[in-house]
């Protein structure tokens, strides 16, 4: 579903990614691990379009979006939930979800909202509330719900557990693989919280210095030695 090959990018003259290859199929959750500065967030930003790819290709469902502008990638099916979640704080919950449907094209907005509310009933109860008044955990739920409203083919999650209470972390850990399976979404999950990453992902890849240095089934990462080697834990 999401295929990346030879991807290079960075900030101005500072290269960060040195040729990343990656393939995620529909319904699969891939955990992306690595130390701070390994290039995980840069990879997500380059896939989403916030950063320009200097070389390589990004394909979503066979369609090359490497040179497309951000909104075109969103419409092609890439949903990016960045660090900090990017909630529109001065819009209501429902308005956040409604702008989320922009990526799905001209379509029945109400049906998409109902689908999102089915997954996140608490959002329906609070749909008239300003999103900025939400707690971190609720905002993360809203950000994922908003991404779903765009009917994505690939979902990029950057540190969904950051700054939120443990019970919601656990909820996200159960929700993400279920959503991926039920709706056939390819999920790339960047996560510092190892418990969450290992719980939610079927497969994990490790980045270091802008390259993917290891990939294996999640079960292999329960091995302490491997973790010590790649993550210096």
């Amino acid at each position, binding site marked *: 579903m999401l295929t990346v090959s030879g991807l290079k990018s960075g900030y101005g003259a500072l290269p960060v990614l040195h040729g990343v290859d990656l393939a995620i199929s529909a319904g699969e959750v891939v955990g992306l691990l690595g130390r701070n500065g390994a290039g995980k967030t840069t990879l997500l930003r380059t896939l989403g379009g916030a950063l320009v790819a200097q070389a390589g290709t990004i394909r979503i469902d066979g369609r090359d979006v490497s040179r497309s502008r951000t*909104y075109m990638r969103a419409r092609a099916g890439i949903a990016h939930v960045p660090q900090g979640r990017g909630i529109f704080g001065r819009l209501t919950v429902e308005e956040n979800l409604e*702008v989320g449907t*922009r990526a799905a094209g001209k379509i029945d907005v109400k049906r998409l909202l109902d689908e999102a509310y089915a997954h996140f009933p608490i959002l329906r109860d609070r749909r008239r509330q300003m999103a900025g008044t939400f707690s971190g955990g609720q905002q993360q739920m809203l950000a994922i719900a908003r991404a779903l409203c765009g009917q994505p083919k690939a979902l990029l999650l950057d540190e969904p557990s950051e700054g939120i209470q443990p019970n919601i972390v656990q909820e996200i850990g159960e929700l993400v693989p279920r959503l991926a399976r039920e709706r056939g979404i390819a999920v790339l999950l960047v996560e510092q919280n190892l418990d969450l990453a290992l719980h939610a992902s079927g497969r994990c890849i490790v980045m270091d210095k802008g390259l993917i240095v290891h990939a294996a089934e999640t079960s292999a990462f329960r091995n302490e030695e491997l973790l010590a080697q790649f993550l210096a834990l």
Partner: protein
Amino acid sequence: MDLAVTTLLNALTLISILALVGLGLTISFGLMNVTNLAHGEFVTVGAFTVYFVQSHGGSFWLGLVAAPVVGAAVGLLLEGIILRRLYERPVGAILATWGVSLILQQGIELTFGLGAKPVVPPLDGVIDLGVSAYPVYRLILIAIALLTLAGVVLLVARTRFGLDIRTVIQNRDMAEAVGINTRRTYAVAFGFGAAVAGLAGALISPLATVLPQMGVNYLANAFFVVIVGGAGSVFGLIAGSTFVGGLTSILNYQISPSLAQALVLLSAIVIVRFRPHGLVSIGGRA
């Protein structure tokens, strides 16, 4: 009593015009962080459109309808050809729009010649309001302005495009990431602001001196309005124009217009000292 009513209606006339002119500025300032020094020329273009239509035998009302269309066209050209390339370079945008302003002024002067152009008001009569008589046309002007502003509030609060604008104001990168074509949103919003400024120019044309340089004066006042009221919000726009327009109208009765202008500027400075983001500093809500 009749003086009070007349002053109030004069204030409402000025407030209406300032709010319509300020709308485009609050869009470019609040939404795009662009200081558009050519905004006054949209007013000029609107006024000259009415003059052009009338001098070719058309009615004032036809000119009033054509003015926002011409204003939007000029605005879209300015955005598409120049501003689009300068969103990341605010100082460059100031210089470029100043240049465009001069080119438009001189272009209009070359096309239409020197001197003030006459625009005939569509209605000459006065209406007896009981305590005082007031020109009918000015009442129509106030009504059209109020309807336009009400329409803008509804557009921003209730429509799909309004939601896109509010989203882009808050976070352009994230708006793009959820699938909004923010470049197009910018262009349409800018063109809309230019259209409303063109409408303001058309409305004021029978009352003002229609000159190629007439926009400059409205530009300065509209900037006061936006800065005092708070950029990026319709309610800030209304608060700012009420303050600037109301104070100017009241002072104009007591003292000379230049001194009145200076006092308005002084009080604007005092307000901005204590409320740096303007009277309505929430930004982005409607």
